[in-house]
Every structure is written in structure tokens, then in C-alpha cells.
């Protein structure tokens, strides 16, 4: 069964067309991640799914029901916000219980669900506190708990980790992955973060300017990007695009090569001068200015003694290169 189906969904705010012909299916139990640059409409799409904004046109189906005119509380969804959005005057327990009470669930069920969610999220000893008395990480767990107790068909997360510091973000990321396994619920997750997208997703949806650019599993998108935008968006450091530095490239074509696929080699296809070196311990990143004046990034595994200002020669495996035409669409090597 499909958990969510979007057909030709459009959304305009006045004359601003924010979402354009969105078609998407989320299977039951799937973890889908929306990524895209800021302002591309990720949050808007999530809010349209939640029912907080009405779609201008198109149909939204959750489970087997068309929900275009169903209010948010009756759509069988729960949402976790970037800003936590906890009710400031209620205790942790009441924050989690409010939705169930509004549904008119009997006390015993409310009690039971809140207890099991707070155990799952390690919130037992905080149940009587107010949100102001919790740390950021605890607040976000309460927000997640508030979503869990409602036992929704579909979870919606809007950048839930972006207010947390790096260590906590990693922990919470792992917790969310574990949660997905335990609950085997369908989840949609919006993020800016490459790592979150790659590690959590069954399926990544790349958005740009309100359009879906490509949908696929993380490795599919990494290995087989449909166009230059997707190729450049996924992967960190991002892919190098060259149109002058490589010989034998037809006019209007661009060659893409990931930083990790470039190696130092005496007789490489590219040569240039090192302008900057980033030593990360496990990796070394070189910024190189080619003789043709293009800048590229090289990611070398391990530590490397290359100095700024030195001349180097770089090679790559032709099979690892991507080719794009003048409309930025990917072309297969045979056609290039």
C-alpha cells in the first residue's frame, strides 16, 4: 500500500508559484528525505502534505483517502518542527498528551502511549517539567515524543536537527533511524544536511525551484545523477565541473568528476597549481587552479604532504567521469 501519493500538486502564494507539478509516491514504511537549496519549497511541500497550507491544485492521498479537504488533525499525520514548537505553559507530559486528549482518547490509552513514548525516548524523569527547563536535545525528543504518541500513518520532520550541536545531531540522527526501524512507520524528512539525507533515506527527493529534479535511493543519485544540479548537490565536497581543462571535450559539453575520484599521478589529464590545502586528518582536500583557469577540489584519502603553491598533475578514471550537455542534462559516455 502507498502511504502518500501526490499528483500534480501546485502551490502558489498570490503570484508566486512555489510548487510546480509535484508527483510523488511514498510507499508504506519508507523513509523519504527532501533535499534542495534554501527556498526551493521543501517546507511548503511538507505543509501542504500536513494540511497547513491548501494546495492550489492537484490531489493528495494519504493511505487510501484523498485528504485535500481534510483538516490537519484528521489526516493521520504528525509533524516535528525545526523550532520544536512545544507548548510553553504545559508540562512535557501534557505536551505529549494534548493531541490524544483532543481526539477524545480514554485516559488509560493516553497514559499508556505517553509512558511508552517517554520510555522509548528516555524522557521518564522529565515528564513533569516545562519546556523551558529542558535542554535543546531534550526538547527535540519531547517534540518527537509528541509525534509518536499519536501513532500516525505518516511522520513529517522539518529539519528537526538543525538547532542541535554536532554531537547531539549525530546521536539524534541515530535515534531517528532506530525509531524508523522500531515503528516501521512511513516518514518524510526535510533537511539541508547531506549526511542526514544519505544515511537516513530509503529514497531521496531532490527539489529545485519548486520542481522535483530527481527521485531515487541515495546511491542511485550519487552514482547516476540525472543532471548537473543533482550531481553537484549530493556529495561533499561537491563534484568538479570542467569545460576547458580537459582536452577532447565537444563544445557545450561539461565534464563532471567527484573530488574523491581524482588522484595525484605524474602523467594525469589535468595539471595546475595548489591554491589551498585543508588537512582533516583522515582526509586531505586540495583546491587546485588548473592551467586553463578553472578551480577544482581534490579529496585525497589519508594525510598528504602537498604544499600550497606546488604544481601537481591529476588523473582520473574515465569511467568515473560524468558528462553533461549545454542544458545541464546528463549524457552517457557513449554519446559524449
Amino acid at each position: 500500500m502507498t502511504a502518500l501519493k501526490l499528483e500534480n500538486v501546485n502551490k502558489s502564494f498570490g503570484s508566486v508559484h512555489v510548487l510546480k507539478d509535484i508527483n510523488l509516491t511514498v510507499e508504506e514504511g519508507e523513509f523519504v528525505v527532501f533535499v534542495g537549496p534554501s527556498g526551493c519549497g521543501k517546507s511548503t511541500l511538507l505543509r501542504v502534505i500536513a494540511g497547513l497550507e491548501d494546495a492550489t491544485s492537484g490531489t493528495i492521498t494519504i493511505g487510501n483517502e484523498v485528504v485535500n479537504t481534510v483538516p490537519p488533525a484528521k489526516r493521520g499525520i504528525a509533524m516535528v518542527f525545526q523550532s520544536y514548537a512545544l507548548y510553553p505553559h504545559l508540562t512535557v507530559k501534557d505536551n505529549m498528551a494534548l493531541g490524544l486528549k483532543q481526539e477524545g482518547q480514554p485516559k488509560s490509552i493516553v497514559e499508556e502511549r505517553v509512558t511508552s513514548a517517554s520510555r522509548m525516548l528516555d524522557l521518564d524523569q522529565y515528564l513533569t517539567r516545562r519546556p523551558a527547563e529542558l535542554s535543546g536535545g531534550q526538547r527535540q525528543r519531547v517534540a518527537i515524543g509528541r509525534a509518536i504518541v499519536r501513532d500516525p500513518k505518516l511522520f513529517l520532520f522539518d529539519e528537526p536537527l538543525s538547532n542541535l550541536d554536532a554531537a547531539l545531531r549525530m546521536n539524534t540522527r541515530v535515534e531517528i533511524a532506530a525509531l524508523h526501524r522500531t515503528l516501521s512507520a512511513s516518514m518524510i524528512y526535510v533537511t539541508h544536511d547531506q549526511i542526514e539525507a544519505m544515511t537516513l533515506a530509503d529514497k531521496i527527493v531532490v527539489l529545485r525551484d519548486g520542481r522535483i529534479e530527481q527521485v531515487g535511493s541515495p546511491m542511485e543519485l550519487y552514482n547516476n545523477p540525472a543532471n548537473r544540479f543533482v550531481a553537484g548537490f549530493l556529495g561533499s565536497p561537491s563534484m568538479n565541473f570542467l569545460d576547458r581543462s580537459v582536452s577532447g571535450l565537444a563544445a557545450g559539453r561539461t565534464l563532471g568528476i567527484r573530488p574523491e575520484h581524482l588522484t595525484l599521478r605524474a602523467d594525469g589529464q589535468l595539471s595546475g597549481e595548489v591554491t589551498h590545502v585543508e588537512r582533516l586528518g583522515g582526509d586531505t582536500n586540495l583546491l587546485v587552479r588548473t592551467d586553463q583557469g578553472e578551480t577544482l577540489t581534490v579529496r585525497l584519502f589519508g594525510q598528504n604532504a602537498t604544499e600550497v603553491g606546488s604544481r601537481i598533475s591529476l588523473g582520473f578514471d574515465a569511467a568515473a567521469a560524468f558528462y553533461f550537455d549545454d542544458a545541464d542534462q546528463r549524457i552517457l559516455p557513449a554519446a559524449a
Partner: protein
Amino acid sequence: MNKARRNPGTTIAAHGALVLYTLIALFPVFVILINSFKTRKAIFREPMALPNTESFSMIGYETVLKQGDFFLYFQNSMIVTVVSLFLVLLFGAMAAFALAEYRFRGNTLMGLYLALGIMIPIRIGTVAILEMMVATGLVNTLTALILVYTAQGLPLAVFILSAFMKGVSDDLKNAGRIDGLSEYMIFFRLVLPLVRPALATVAVFNMIPIWNDLWFPLILAPSEETKTLTLGSQVFIGQFVTDWNAVLSALSMAILPVMILYVFFSRQLIRGITSGAVK
């Protein structure tokens, strides 16, 4: 304040300025209070002196209390002020919520229309208001005053409150919607508690002019049963002789209720529970 940022010099200067301002602001009140306890002669001979055994007199208070209806005037003023404030806050907050929260045609226009009310004094319409009150038979009722003061207070209330309501996190309201709260519950249970300081500000701003107003009680409700305190005190101010003892005593007593209301609202001003709601 953070300890590290506290500098004794600036603290003293700031407190000095505040104390000075307090003294200046309280001085007239102080003069009214001390003179209300003095004999008529003492008031004129030494207006600044404290009452002593010789000049002490309760004659003013006796006159005021003997003047029969003083407690009724008191009650009228209290009813008019409290009910008007309640209506201003309720309708002002509701209108502000609608303007801040919902996108509808004419939203901006409506906001501007309401803002116009801040700039045009309601007294310009006195004649028309009086005609309306006569036509509806509301002359000499407290309802007339309450309606006028509510109308007078709404524009500023809407203006201030909508600015504050725009500041309430959208995520919080949306979380409420997803949890199944109705728009009314979101308004009353999520938004109002968060803008409580703004509500208190609006209440304080509106309270004093309503309590002190002489104009509308004189024109719309001058009858004995509907006189407000300010209007009632005018009986002591004659064209030729003014009973200063009574006037000062009436004024002194009139301060009390406003002060109680003020203390009540300022507690709301200080009590901030918003922290921790949203990051």
C-alpha cells in the same frame, strides 16, 4: 542583568535618574494627598507643609462621604473602566489575531482602516455619537459609556496586539492545528498567554484615560445614577466657590482603584513564560 556587564557607575547613574523621575512624577500626587488632610485655611496658607496637629482635618473626606452617592459614582467608574477594558482586550485581540494570522482579501486595507482610528480623536464625533445614543435610548446609561470607550480603545489595541501576534511562532500554532486544536483554542490557549505582556500594556494605556474622562460622562450620562467619579467630583467645584477639601479628598480616593488595577496588570507584564517555547 549579567554580573560581568554590571558597572557600579552606570548602575548608580541609572538609578539616580529613575529616582529623580519618580520624585517628579509623584510630587503632584503627594501634594494632593497631604492637602486632603488639612483644613481649608492650611491648604492656602502653606500648601507644601505636612498636616500637623493644628492643621489636620478630615473635613474633606467627611464632606465627600456625606455627599451620599459617592460610592455609587465609584462603582460606576469601576464598572465602566473594567468592562470597557475587558471588551477592548477581547475584541482587540481577536481582530489582531485575524489580521496577523489569516491571509484574506482586504487584510492590509482593514489594518490601515483600523489604524486610522488612532489618528482621529473620537471626540470629533461627539455630536453624532450623542444623536445615536438618543436614537437608541442609551443616554444616561453606563452602556453608552462602555460602547464609546470600547470604540475608542480598539484601534490602538489592534495595532499593538497584531504586531505582537505576528511574532508568535507559526510552528507553535501549526503544532496546535495538527494536535486538533480549533482556531479558537489556538487563540485562547496558545496565543493569548504568549502575548500577555502586550495585553497588560494595552490595558494600562487604556485604563487611565477612561477612568479620568470627564467629557463623555458629562455629555452621555450626566444623570445622578450614572455619574462617574470624575463627574461626581465636579459638584465640589463651583463657579464661585470651590470646596478644595472635598475635591482633594475625592481625588485621593480616586487614585486607589486605578493603582490596584495597575498593580494587577503590571504583574502580568513581568511574568514571562515564553522562554523555551521555541528556540
